[in-house]
């Protein structure tokens, strides 16, 4: 995977989703290609989320003990990518939020998502394929309606790229 060669001191991040109700996600190799990911990171594909949650890899390890030994051993095992729980203002007319809702009801739609971080000039894209596993709307009348959904990234299907 190409690693980003830019440090962005102070940046804004946005979340984009691939359009279409029946998308063909980018292949693993294309997730590391800036030309491929930036084509999806366009304003029409922007998800109106309140904040970008933590993303990356969860921890998974096995503990091994030897009788009589003071220390045990933690061996990394197969870890899953971090699931991302996202909150957005619920707008039933927003096409991308409706796509998320449709994905959650379906449960088997793989879609490419892009987290794009920029300081105004330099751009770093983290692209991954994922499925939406949960979607709920909080219609509390004392505040604006919010929707919450969870993206479960697919294992191994991620890539980093940057514009320079």
């Amino acid at each position, binding site marked *: 995977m190409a690693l980003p060669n830019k440090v962005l001191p102070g940046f804004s991040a946005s979340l984009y989703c691939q359009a279409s109700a029946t998308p063909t996600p980018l292949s693993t190799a294309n997730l590391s290609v800036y030309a491929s990911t930036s084509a999806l990171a366009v304003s029409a594909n922007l998800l109106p989320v309140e904040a970008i949650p933590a993303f990356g890899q969860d921890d998974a390890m096995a503990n091994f003990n030897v009788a009589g030994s003071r220390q045990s051993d933690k061996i990394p095992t197969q870890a899953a990518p971090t699931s991302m729980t996202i909150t957005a203002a619920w707008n039933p007319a927003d096409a991308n939020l409706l796509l998320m809702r449709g994905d959650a009801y379906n449960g088997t739609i793989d879609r490419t998502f892009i987290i794009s971080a920029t300081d105004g000039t330099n751009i770093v894209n983290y692209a991954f394929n994922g499925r939406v596993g949960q979607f709920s709307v909080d219609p509390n009348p004392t505040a604006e309606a919010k929707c919450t959904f969870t993206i479960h990234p697919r294992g*191994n299907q991620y890539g980093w790229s940057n514009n320079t």
Partner: protein
Amino acid sequence: MKLSDAVELLTSTYQSLDAVALGLPVDAKEVADALAKADPDSAEYVALQALAKVNPYENTKKEKVKQNDDTNQE
């Protein structure tokens, strides 16, 4: 296996590139040559990088020349 077939497989797979590349027997020199010519912002380049990682190419020709070099003044 032909390099073009391996690259095509790697650019279309949804599996881990490193894991797939391990199972693709290709010529290391061919990979190194193709990598030098590839566009860094292309899926082919990413695929070739994965292949180069498991098929490292070392140019041994220069070392042999050095070994046979009798101009050493020591």
